[in-house]
């Protein structure tokens, strides 16, 4: 079970970054062992489509969930179609706390109505 977290830094003491596509780091964390891999977000400064590019990255890493501060409509659609659940946490939450809340089923799953 792998969780992708948009993060402000490269380890679990970092905060969850409020942006999905333009966060500086992605942490791919094993939900049980908390072993993780940190990847610098190469798409953070893309002119457009940073969100869809990061969704592609998450799908390539076979993550089953994303934890972030906000996910835009294009990335949301790509992740949803790929069967990835999206959880939103408030700004300033540490990655470690967010993972604990995730394990306890306390995170709110993101919904988006496309009108």
């Amino acid at each position, binding site marked *: 079970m792998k969780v992708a977290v948009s993060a402000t830094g490269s380890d679990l003491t970092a905060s969850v970054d409020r942006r999905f596509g333009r966060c500086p780091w992605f942490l791919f964390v094993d939900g049980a062992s908390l072993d993780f891999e940190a990847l610098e977000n190469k*798409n953070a400064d*893309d*002119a*457009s*489509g*940073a*969100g*869809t*590019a990061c*969704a*592609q990255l998450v*799908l390539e890493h076979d993550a089953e969930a994303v934890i972030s501060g906000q996910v835009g409509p*294009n990335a949301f*659609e*790509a992740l949803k*179609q*790929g069967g990835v659940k999206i959880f939103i946490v408030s700004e300033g939450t540490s990655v470690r706390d967010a993972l604990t809340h995730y394990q306890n089923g306390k995170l709110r799953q993101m919904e988006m109505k496309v009108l």
Partner: protein
Amino acid sequence: MIISVASGKGGTGKTTIATSLALSLGEVQFLDCDVEEPNAHIFLKPAIYEKRVIGIPVPKVDESRCTFCRKCAEVCEYNSIVVIKKKVLVFPDLCHGCGGCSYVCPEGAITEVEKPIGVIERGSAGKIDFIHGILNIGEPMAPPLIRQVKKQIDGNKTVIIDASPGTSCPVVETVKGSDFCVLVTEPTPFGLNDLTLAVAMLRKLAIPCGVVINCADIGDDEVVKYCEREGIPILMTIPWDRKIAATYSTGIPLVEALPHYTSNFLGLYERIRKETT
């Protein structure tokens, strides 16, 4: 000669200047490239005789031929394709229509289909050959439509181009290739700030420019000082005049409401000619 009218700050009088310059000169081509909100037609009142839908090519993926190799997603500069295990998602609003994906697809699984983004209308307003683009509401990408409007340029005529405000991609696309750019500003800190940005943009594009100061007797003299410092000619000044604003609000061009301005606009054109030779 191609003269574009731009501003940096919005609401300084681009359309006022562009339409009155065109009306004063008479036989010109007029392009409204502010495709997100074209309004020159309100003043020039052209009789439209031609309308064409403009689209950009976006990818269509035949999933029965696709091997999900992701080459299309990797080549896309705008990240408009996401490949899921057995599915390819295309985000047409992100696509710039470059065709790279269909070019690199080893299976020939990608064809391009036209996605409409707006229309071009052409008409005549007296001796003025009028063309404008209207971007579809909600469509994020103006430059491809602006390029199509500019394809109508008749090199034998004097061409006046009305730009959108700002210094972003649509404005760059609009002013590119102009022989001269008129920057309309107002003598306020906002006007000066955005004028500075517009001048920097034009210098990068190596387009000569001059400034028209609108509502010239309000605000301060910082714009004048800036122009002197930077060696930018002040081509014309228009005082604040309630009558200009009132007639503008009813769709009457400046030179029709106040015909004595015609000679000022002819003078503006002569100044531009001198600046470009």
